């Protein structure tokens, strides 16, 4: 049994050497000669050195650079939009906060603020509605684009 395994290993080892010799001979351009088996491996080695039937386009590296630059530019543009909206959102929120602060001061009868101005703003229902619309519009404009960008 042991002898059988050894014989089989020897055969495989010999076959592997034939395959490797054919590959090396083909690389070195040595003349093809030897047994029919060696010549078949040599023919195979020759075939495996042939270019594939399809290739990347010749301008692939340049196109790849263009593509990456376009992606980076799009990302920069999206970041800039987002930053601008965030800034406006922040200032809008800040304005609302200031107005709320002013109302609290007025209700607590803080004397330094002219209550007529606050009363004028609050008594007009269009002012808080307009403020709410502005904040809502910013929130709506930011979110769908961000969802869209993350789902791509």
């Amino acid at each position, binding site marked *: 049994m042991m002898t059988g395994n050894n014989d089989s290993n020897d055969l495989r080892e010999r076959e592997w050497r034939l395959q490797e010799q054919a590959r090396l001979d083909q690389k070195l351009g040595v003349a093809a000669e030897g047994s029919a088996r060696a010549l078949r491996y040599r023919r*195979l080695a020759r075939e495996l050195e042939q270019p594939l039937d399809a290739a990347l386009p010749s301008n692939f590296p340049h196109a790849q650079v263009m593509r990456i630059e376009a992606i980076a530019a799009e990302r920069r543009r999206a970041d800039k939009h987002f930053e601008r909206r965030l800034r406006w959102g922040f200032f809008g929120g800040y304005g609302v906060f200031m107005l709320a602060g002013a109302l609290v001061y007025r209700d607590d009868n803080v004397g330094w603020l002219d209550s007529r101005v606050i009363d004028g703003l609050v008594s007009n229902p269009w002012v808080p509605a307009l403020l709410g619309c502005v904040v809502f519009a910013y929130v709506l404009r930011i979110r769908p684009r961000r969802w869209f960008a993350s789902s791509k």
Partner: protein
Amino acid sequence: MSPRLAPLSPDHMTSDRALVEAVLDKRPGAFERLVGEYQGLCWHIVYRLVRQPEDAQNMCQETFLRVHQNLHQYRHDCPLKHWIGRVAYSIALRHLQRRKIALGAELQSDEALVLPEDEAEYFDYAAACDDAQAAHRLREAVDALAPLPRMLLTLYHFEDVSIPDIAQITALPPGTIKSHLFRARLRLRERLESGDFQ
């Protein structure tokens, strides 16, 4: 299972390091040079695995996009060629898994392998080289191999990548790679012994 990293040759280190630093410094033309240098390897890995030119081209694009995004993570602990090859291989592998295409990585026991004897004692090498029809059929036989052995043959013969280097790219043990090469070449030799090539 990840094979041990091969030591770098000084040439590899200097050229890879210079190229990577140039790309990270955003020097003009650096990334284009990197793509130009490694697109062949990437194409051979991906195209041999997936066989569809359009899919393969998209995957090459994805490979270099990922290389560009993650190059700062490259630690110079292996040649850049292996690092890029691994990215390409993993992308193509995921594509095959998604499409449920068998990679052909399973090896039967060596005991089951029967070495064929030469049936024909004579083989006309010159005629076999000149026969375009026979060459076409041999190419078809190569294409009919499972994706993994097909890719291994191309890396080993065409790209001239050594077995330890292929092990780095594919994370397969060198013995497994050797076994795939051996069996694939044996099968193709059998095809050459068939009537088509006499």
